[in-house]
């Protein structure tokens, strides 16, 4: 309906393959970015940052990472929580060992460390496929959590095994620790989320992305046309784990501030992120964001409606919330198994065809 595509033509392959080939989409994207960077930071408060925006952005990064692995490369993983923990503990160790270096660099390094760990746990994917692989990645999940719980070196021998983020600043602003303002938290996560989404988009549209998708769609054919399954799968694990590691690092250092492996990065995280990816849409960057938004917002929304709005007892509300979320997930999968991204695509198609039905 709103699309005016006539005259929006491409004279180079560069233009033709850009992320938002339609001018209106491009404008929408820039507008969203402008709001995200210029408007939201001005109005955000602790509640919105901590309950909605920061978790949303961090989960979006994790979902992006998992989507690269599962949605693009077709390797189902339930080890997300464990990999997030790697990112978190790596940041903790790095930032306490090298306090002179910016924590932002530590976060990126943590991503790199997670990538290495991810590759290690990705090795079985060369032999194991499908659900077997999904279950196998649980080994990573349980082992990593156990490791971080058991080896005191990881938590600097603190009495309780908790890790607490040291306070760090960037450009004179606190970005970790309790004194961090809502705006700073939000902006740090936003920069990472936008930057990584951009990287994800770049990777998935080029050579690597095609190798991943080829492996996903038909691994044998992919190999016969010259894709080395070893490198393709392992790069997917590496890149995916990098993203998830960064998400874990941010989750710990910017969002929670303190964490304990089994509590913050348990198996539920793995499922949650997988859900985001599926509800959002496998193989879609937008879907990763949409899925994260959906599953971060929905419980908050339901809780506020049921408890805040209708005044139900919290436990009943929580149980009913569980039922609603579960039912909604099933409903969603029935209505649109390809997720919110597909829904969005269809809507866009409809709008582009408007007023025609097809």
């Amino acid at each position, binding site marked *: 309906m709103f699309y005016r595509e006539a005259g929006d033509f491409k004279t180079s392959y560069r233009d033709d393959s850009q992320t938002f080939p339609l001018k209106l989409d491009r404008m929408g994207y820039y507008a969203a970015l402008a709001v995200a960077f210029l408007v939201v930071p001005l109005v955000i408060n602790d509640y919105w940052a901590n309950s909605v925006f920061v978790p949303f952005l961090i989960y979006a990064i994790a979902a992006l990472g998992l989507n690269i692995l599962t949605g693009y490369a077709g390797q189902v993983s339930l080890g997300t929580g464990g990999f997030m923990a790697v990112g978190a503990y790596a940041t903790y160790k790095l930032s306490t060992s090298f306090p002179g270096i910016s924590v932002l660099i530590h976060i990126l390094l943590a991503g790199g460390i997670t990538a290495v760990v991810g590759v290690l746990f990705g090795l079985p994917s060369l032999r194991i496929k499908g659900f077997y692989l999904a279950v196998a990645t649980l080994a990573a999940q349980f082992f990593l959590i156990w490791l971080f719980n058991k*080896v005191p070196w990881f938590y600097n021998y603190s009495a309780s095994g908790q890790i607490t983020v040291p306070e760090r600043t960037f450009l004179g602003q606190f970005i970790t620790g309790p004194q961090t303002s809502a705006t700073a938290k939000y902006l740090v996560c936003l920069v990472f989320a936008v930057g990584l989404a951009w990287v994800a988009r770049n990777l998935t549209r080029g050579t690597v992305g095609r190798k991943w998708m080829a492996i996903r769609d038909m691994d044998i054919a992919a190999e016969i046309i010259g894709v080395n399954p070893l490198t393709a799968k392992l790069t997917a694990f590496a890149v995916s784990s990098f993203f998830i590691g960064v998400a874990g690092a941010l989750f710990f250092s910017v969002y929670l501030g303190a964490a304990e492996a089994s509590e913050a990065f348990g198996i539920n995280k793995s499922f949650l992120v997988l859900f985001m990816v599926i509800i959002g849409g496998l193989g879609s960057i937008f879907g990763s964001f949409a899925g994260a938004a959906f599953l971060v917002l929905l419980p908050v929304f339901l809780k506020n409606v049921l408890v805040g709005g209708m005044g139900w007892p919290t436990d009943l509300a929580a149980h009913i919330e569980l*039922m609603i979320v579960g039912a909604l997930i*099933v409903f969603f999968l029935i209505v649109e198994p390809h997720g919110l991204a597909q829904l969005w695509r269809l809507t866009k198609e409809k709008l582009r065809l408007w007023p025609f039905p097809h």
Partner: protein
Amino acid sequence: MEQLLYASEVVVNGLMAGVMYSLVALGFVLIYKASGVFNYAQGVMALFAALTLVGIQQGQVPFAHLINAAFGTHLETFGWTVPSVLAILLTAAVMVGLAILIEKLVLKHLVGQEPIILFMATIGLAWFLEGLGDVMWGANVKSLDVGIPQGLSETVESATFALTGYGFFIDRLDIWAAVVAVLLVAALVAFSQYTKQGRAMRAVADDHQAALSVGISLRFIWIMVWSIAGFVALVAGIMWGTKSGVQFSLSLIALKALPVLMLGGFTSIPGAIVGGLIIGMGEKLFEYFIGPMVGGATENWFAYVLALVFLVFRPQGLFGEKIIERV
């Protein structure tokens, strides 16, 4: 010598624990085999079955909490208790009803979807059932007693003591579980071999299209399989509920069944049993011998690592069907 005896005791106990895992894994296998659905909700079904069983036994008013909250009433129980056998039968009926609902509301609409979508749907189902169970019967810990004895089996202890000079510990519940598991598997085998429905079920498992073309109603088979899986869940729920009370954590036993499945193969009933035994034995041995060196609590991950190592050599699981690659 003493170490060896301890080790054998660990092995025996591990095997027994493995049987408990197998009970859960069985439900997975049944459903996966017949409908290709990886049913993550199996654990929650066990919880739901156990909750329902206790609720019926103790004459709880279902949804009491919800009704009280909505109407300001103070309902608790009907004030009667139901004998165990009757309660079990009633619960089985509830599970059949549940299977029908699941087929009608979920599976029917997801025919032909990718496996991962079906898997996700069962997680959604798990969340729903978890919420439903709590809303129906309340979230407090309930003890389940259908007359299965618990605790050290003196017979075994004295027998082994006489034999080796060291009395083995075996939980009577575990012995019961083993017996029940054997009966269950025998019944399942008998059912699938000697009944018309069972043969249809196997036909569907072998080839959906072929089964359809000879006039087997897929929907009926699915309902049947889910009902059987519901019954298996009930059995698992009874065993685990007796062991550690009926409560939320019961649903997490699904996680203990997953490595068993990996190891045994998703499609094999003997695989579920043998896988359970190997996992149970393996994790107990590891925890016993290596655990203390690395700080213990290794069982959760070791089970998976063990299964993983097996898989690397046999990607389709111990008893899974061989994957043949073609172009």
